[in-house]
């Protein structure tokens, strides 16, 4: 029997596989029943073993377990056509992408050997690191960026109950996919601003 952490990891990977077709605009405009059948089939296929291992297991081998943040974002993307949610508001998107990109830049180079300091160690039972997360979540709630608060709160609940194999808080809030999404979003935004034509003064 798979453990709960295995189930969570495999379901997240299956969700990532199922979310891929949503990248095509026509797909998200399909009738709800057809779309539900399509996404449901994708999840089931991702969890059915082929050659001893389900496709979600192959993906899990390559990527490791997805963070809770990525899982929340995937759930939002998959649920959006059904619940009529609009796109993430620009302020939430920018803040979330900034935090994920900043977190990725602060974590990965040093964890992979740049310098002697390993920020990953902070994720093991460091109460003040948890305190920083609490301040971020409260600040995001107060500044009306609820998606950031939600991602942090759900990630911390999952961390507290051992929802993933990892015992490190970093692995619940951040993974390379989320960091790449954040970084590429910021770069795209910066490039768009640079390449946009300058505003014209109104003619008199």
């Amino acid at each position, binding site marked *: 029997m798979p453990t709960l952490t295995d189930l969570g990891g495999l379901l997240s990977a299956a969700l990532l596989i199922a979310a891929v077709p949503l990248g095509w605009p026509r797909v998200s405009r399909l009738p709800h029943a057809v779309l539900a059948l399509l996404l449901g089939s994708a999840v089931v296929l991702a969890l059915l073993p082929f050659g001893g291992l389900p496709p979600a297991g192959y993906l899990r*081998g390559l990527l490791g377990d997805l963070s809770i943040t990525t899982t929340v974002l995937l759930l939002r993307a998959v649920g959006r056509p059904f619940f009529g949610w609009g796109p993430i508001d620009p302020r939430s*998107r920018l803040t979330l992408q900034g935090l994920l990109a900043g977190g990725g830049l602060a974590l990965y180079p040093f964890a992979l050997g740049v310098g002697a300091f390993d920020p990953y*160690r902070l994720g*093991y039972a460091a109460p003040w690191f948890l305190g920083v997360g609490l301040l971020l979540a409260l600040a995001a709630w107060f500044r009306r960026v609820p998606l950031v608060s939600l991602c942090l709160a759900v990630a911390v609940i999952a961390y507290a109950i051992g929802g993933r194999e990892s015992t490190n808080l970093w*692995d619940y809030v951040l993974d390379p996919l989320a960091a790449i999404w954040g970084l590429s979003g910021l770069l795209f935004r910066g490039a768009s601003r640079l390449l946009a034509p300058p505003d014209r003064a109104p003619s008199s």
Partner: protein
Amino acid sequence: MTGANAPGAAPPRPPLLLALILVAFGTAFLRSPGLNPALFRVSSPAEGGPDEPRFESSFVSPRNNTQTHAASLVELRDGRVRAFWYAGSREGAEDVAIQTAVFDPHGGRWGGETTVASRESTQASVRRLVKKVGNPTAGLAADGRLWLFYVTVSVGGWAGSSITAMTSSDDGETWSAPRRLITSPFLNLSTLVRGAPFLYADGTMGLPVYHEFIGQFGELLRLDGTGRVIDKQRLTVSGRGLQPVVLVRSPREALALMRYAGPERHPKVVETVTRDAGQHWTPPTRSTLSNPDAALSGVVLPDGRLLVALNNIEVDRDALSLVISRDGGGSWETVRQLEDQSARREAPPDEARYLRIIARLARASDPSLADPTAYGPSVKRAMYWGDRYHFEFSYPSLIQTRSGDFHIVYDWNRTLIKHVRFNRAWLDQQRSDASHADPH
């Protein structure tokens, strides 16, 4: 779901979300006890009685036509010794599996070789892709359970490794399902094991590990009684040391020795010291021991001396030495040259002569072998690297059992695992015989 609103409208501040934040972080604070420092647990083998000097060797398993590597030893609760190693058609092949056998010190014989874990069995249990398995190491936990840690690779080469763990409550007869340890934030890539685990006084376990992807450095994991990773500490900066071996000298003091994998022309074993039970480690320095980018192993004797097995040479792995230090690793003396074929580097033997040498070495290593010439073709396949026939005696694992006896296992030409057993009387005899031994 939050984040979706009418265009231009500021999102609300949902009270439910605030409650969720407070509950989430409150729960996490309550369930996260923080990390408590602990002293090292010092093992206490017997000093060794008035025995006759005893030194004997054999092969762990006579199985032929496989490539073997990275053996590791652990003393079981009843005093027997269990070895783990990996074997298959070649290093990194899909058919490589973690093998084990038990040595009974009373009968002086190894039991039959069995498979503990394969690529397939590991993949089925950890429910993700596993391409190959590698280095095993084992230790007894404070509760008496036997823990086996081994390297598994899902992506790329050894730099893409992660650690898988299994436990046994019956000294290795049966095992729990393997499970993955999460030790790295980047796709859980690149944490490998080689050195033996050790215990802290509070029952937690220290597991020396190392990282190879982009940067290469030694690290130390700390696991609680259930095997959950509760801390990770870096022992060296990038490029300075791999495969740490932690020699616990007292409840507060330990010396970590590491394989050197850098570009220096005169490579030396890297060392770092702690005097506060691992809270802090000194910056890594070069020891006086040479190291040709190869694993080493060691123990602390009851009288405080350090005994280390390693390739104490600058290139190749064709000589294996047993060295001892009486000053905490400041200086070392050679106790015994366990193997030495380095003189044949310059005058490589032809194939026929090579096979004769291999047969002679095999017979000397294990007089009970039925046909020492049978291993020649297998050794030749493993050790002919396109330029000449090599010899390799590497990856030692050295332990001292509670009876006071010492055991070493190591790669014997990548084809067999050789076991050497000696007692304290033999060690002391070597010291008196080799009082003229070269200091390093």
